[in-house]
């Protein structure tokens, strides 16, 4: 089998493969840079929490619109934004740090969601509606995830410098009246948007796998955030591309194949990365002249 036949023909032959790749690319571009910031702010687990936090919004939408994807996605988005807003406000105005305030907010949201569902008495698993499949990306989902990626990249470009400073030295921002609270909120909004769009298009595991794992891996190869950003995107895209091919040629389930590829990349980085890896610890490179 030639390289073309192995790596490119599957995408040429099948529409679903092309769509899957485009959706993953959009998520990589929009989400991986956010993943870098999530890791820096020690909020890497927020994606997992968010997949539960959107439940009450989806449940309420279900009560009014039935088992319909788009109202439920919108409801989930609203719930996610509400949780992010609440967590952000609590972080800003109380003594609580980000991780604790977020955990409190999402657990509350999840419990409310479960309550709404049990009151309604229906045992249909609502969440399945919200979580998509990378092999089943339809036009609407494609537009959603591409639109979010575009918006996200645009906004991130605007707030990039401020966000970096705020991550590095929040005290500095505060003393310069840099509206750090607003900045943090805006960042959370972007995270929620990307997550919900990714959930809907690709499912929860893939959404978080593509957003966060490449960002973590990138940290082992550069100590410069300006390089970490595009590197994370490249890693994310590479994981998706390779994972899809593995799923195609070896009949592996698609979602796990992509995430495991990202995971392998992460492990390789942990062991052999340039900065702070296990190799650099036990086999350090020669030091410079004084």
């Amino acid at each position, binding site marked *: 089998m030639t390289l073309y036949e192995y790596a490119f023909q599957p995408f040429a032959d099948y529409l679903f493969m092309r769509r899957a790749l485009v959706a993953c690319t959009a998520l990589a571009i929009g989400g991986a840079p956010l993943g870098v910031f999530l890791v*820096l702010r020690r909020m890497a687990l927020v994606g997992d929490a968010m997949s539960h936090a959107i439940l009450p919004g989806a449940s309420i939408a279900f009560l009014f619109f039935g088992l319909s994807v788009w109202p439920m996605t919108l409801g989930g988005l609203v719930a996610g934004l509400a949780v992010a807003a609440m967590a952000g406000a609590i972080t800003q105005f109380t003594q609580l740090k980000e991780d604790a305030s977020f955990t409190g907010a999402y657990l509350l949201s999840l419990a409310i969601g479960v309550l709404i569902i049990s009151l309604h008495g229906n045992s249909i698993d609502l969440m399945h509606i919200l979580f998509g499949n990378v092999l089943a990306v339809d036009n609407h989902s494609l537009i959603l995830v591409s639109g979010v990626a575009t918006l996200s990249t645009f906004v991130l470009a605007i707030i990039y*410098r401020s966000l970096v400073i705020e*991550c*590095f030295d929040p005290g500095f921002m505060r003393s310069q009246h840099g509206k750090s609270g607003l900045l943090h909120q805006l960042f959370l909004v972007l995270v929620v948007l990307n997550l919900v769009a990714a959930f809907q298009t690709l499912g929860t595991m893939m959404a978080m796998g593509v957003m966060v794992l490449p960002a973590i891996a990138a940290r082992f190869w550069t100590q410069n955030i*300006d390089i970490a950003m595009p590197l994370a995107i490249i890693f994310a895209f590479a994981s998706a591309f390779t994972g899809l091919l593995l799923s195609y040629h070896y009949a592996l389930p698609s979602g796990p194949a992509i995430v495991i590829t990202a995971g392998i990349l992460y492990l390789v980085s942990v062991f052999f990365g340039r900065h702070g890896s296990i190799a650099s610890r036990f086999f350090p490179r020669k030091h410079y002249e004084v």
Partner: protein
Amino acid sequence: MNVTLNNVTISYNRHPAVHHISGTFERGSLTAIAGPNGAGKSTLLKAIAGILQPQEGSIQINGKLAYLPQASEMQRDFPLSVLHMVLTGLWQQTGGMKAITKAMKERASIALTEVGLKGFEKRDLASLSTGQFQRALFARLLVQDADIMLLDEPFNAIDEHTVSLLMDIMLRWHEEKRTIICVLHDFTQIRAYFPQTLLLARECIAWDSTEKALHPEKLATTRFFRDDWNSNVSICERAI
């Protein structure tokens, strides 16, 4: 270009770290804040910088402010280059969006040279020692070009030669009539360079010329200062 404290009390969990402080740092003054460990010096400085909020009282600031934190409080492995970190000091001019010009990079470079970090532009923050990190923060302070400079233990982990380097910069600021407030615990340094001293042991023990403030009598008072939370205290009834 001055800073006025009006009956400022800053508490952690209702226990005051800074207790009923009033006074003014006049324009162009060069003041050291001294006192035993845990006396509230950093806390006061942070409140002036706007990072902490006083529980009681108020702080009035006239002029642009710049704050130098202790290197130990910062994220030492954040993925930034030294030049970029120093450039963030130009925030007031660039905001989040405006381009960084060559002139700005020049300024940052010069600042780095002034603090003894010439050629460090492309280094990662993670590769710096504590002293080097402290000096890089100092360079950031330099480019901020503020009227009021707040420095929290700027000479920690720095050798004598560099201390005099940095002190030269501070004296230059003093000549430029900027207001400088500096937390220090080395009395020799204070006596050598700082005309004014605020002696703090939660409360204001002395706020005067250095000679008077660091008088042995005053220093003896602070020796009774206990750096522990007394669990049997009653509510403070002072009105002032």
